[in-house]
């Protein structure tokens, strides 16, 4: 390296080199900045988009589930309504059956022979249930005679079966609208036994429901256990 001072041409050369160097450095720095900017841009954008997408997805999932649940509820409501309709229809038929039988028993009392037999049986049953020495037999006004006779033979049979005596009194106090039968009240007026046709039918209506169901509508297909 010469230490003599540089002439004009060399100075210019050096200057240009330095200027070029500065420029070059600047350009490189600028390039770096740009490249980094592009990278950051992509990352930032992807991050934002992803974030929002997740939120939107979650929202839609919820709405979707809501619709599904609503649909299930609707289906269940339909099934329920349908079942209720079926039950309602069965109930209607059942009521019809009972009202028919209630009007039918009115004719039972007209068959004299059977009616007397029935009365006898019913009165003995009542005696045997009450097991008191003295009773009052209530009947319909039109039945008083028949019932008196029946009570008499019933008392004899009662003595045969149980060895006990019974003293009875017949009163025609029952309503004439009833179908027939008797009502017994013990002498001390503490025990009442309703053995009228109406009451017996009512009891039957209640107790026979499973059997009635089976006869009218067939056995239950879903039932698994019977005692």
């Amino acid at each position, binding site marked *: 390296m010469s230490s003599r001072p540089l002439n004009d041409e060399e*100075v210019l050369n050096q200057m240009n080199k*330095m*200027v070029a160097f*500065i*420029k070059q450095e*600047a*350009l490189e*720095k*600028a*390039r770096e*900045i*740009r490249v*980094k*900017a*592009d990278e*950051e*841009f*992509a990352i*930032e*954008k992807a991050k*934002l*988009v992803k974030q*929002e997408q997740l939120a*939107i*997805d979650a929202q*839609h999932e919820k709405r*979707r589930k809501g*619709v599904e649940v609503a*649909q299930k509820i*609707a*289906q269940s409501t339909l099934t329920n309504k*349908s079942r209720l*309709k*079926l039950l309602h*229809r069965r109930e209607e*038929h059942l009521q*019809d*059956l009972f009202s*028919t*039988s209630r009007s039918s*028993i009115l004719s039972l009392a007209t068959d004299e022979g059977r009616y007397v037999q*029935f009365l006898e*049986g019913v009165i*003995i*049953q009542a*005696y045997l249930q009450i097991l008191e020495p003295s009773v009052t037999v209530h009947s319909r006004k039109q039945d008083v005679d028949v019932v008196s006779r029946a009570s008499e033979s019933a008392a004899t*049979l009662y003595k045969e*079966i*149980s*060895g*006990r005596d019974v003293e009875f009194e017949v009163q025609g106090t029952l309503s004439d609208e009833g179908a027939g039968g008797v009502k017994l009240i013990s002498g001390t007026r503490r025990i009442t036994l309703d053995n009228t*046709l109406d009451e017996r*039918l009512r009891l*039957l209506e209640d107790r*026979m429901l499973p*059997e*009635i169901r089976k*006869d*009218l*509508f067939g056995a239950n297909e879903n039932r698994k256990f019977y005692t």
Partner: protein
Amino acid sequence: MAAQQSQGIQTLLEAEKEAAKIVQQARQYRVQKLKDARSEATKEIEEYKKAKERDFKAFEQSYAGTTSNAQTAVDNETEIKLQAISESYTRSKDLVVKKLLDRVVLVKPELHRNLKKLGA
């Protein structure tokens, strides 16, 4: 000589200024890019949202269709079952009425099982 030197320094200073400008431009570019990132992301998100909305609407439509179908199907089934019930009833009604009436008059008087017949 001094004039030459100061001229040289001047040129260098200008070169520095230019360089700074270039770098400054690059920095501005960066800032702009970041803003762009935000706005473009928003745009993309909007697109996505709309697409999802469309999907969902289609889904809802299909469900509405199935519910009305289900309604009519259930109604028809119910109607058939109701018919069956009524028919079965009319068939068996008399039988059951007779059963009831027979049992109303059926009596079996018995002494209570814990008691014994009294007397000789």
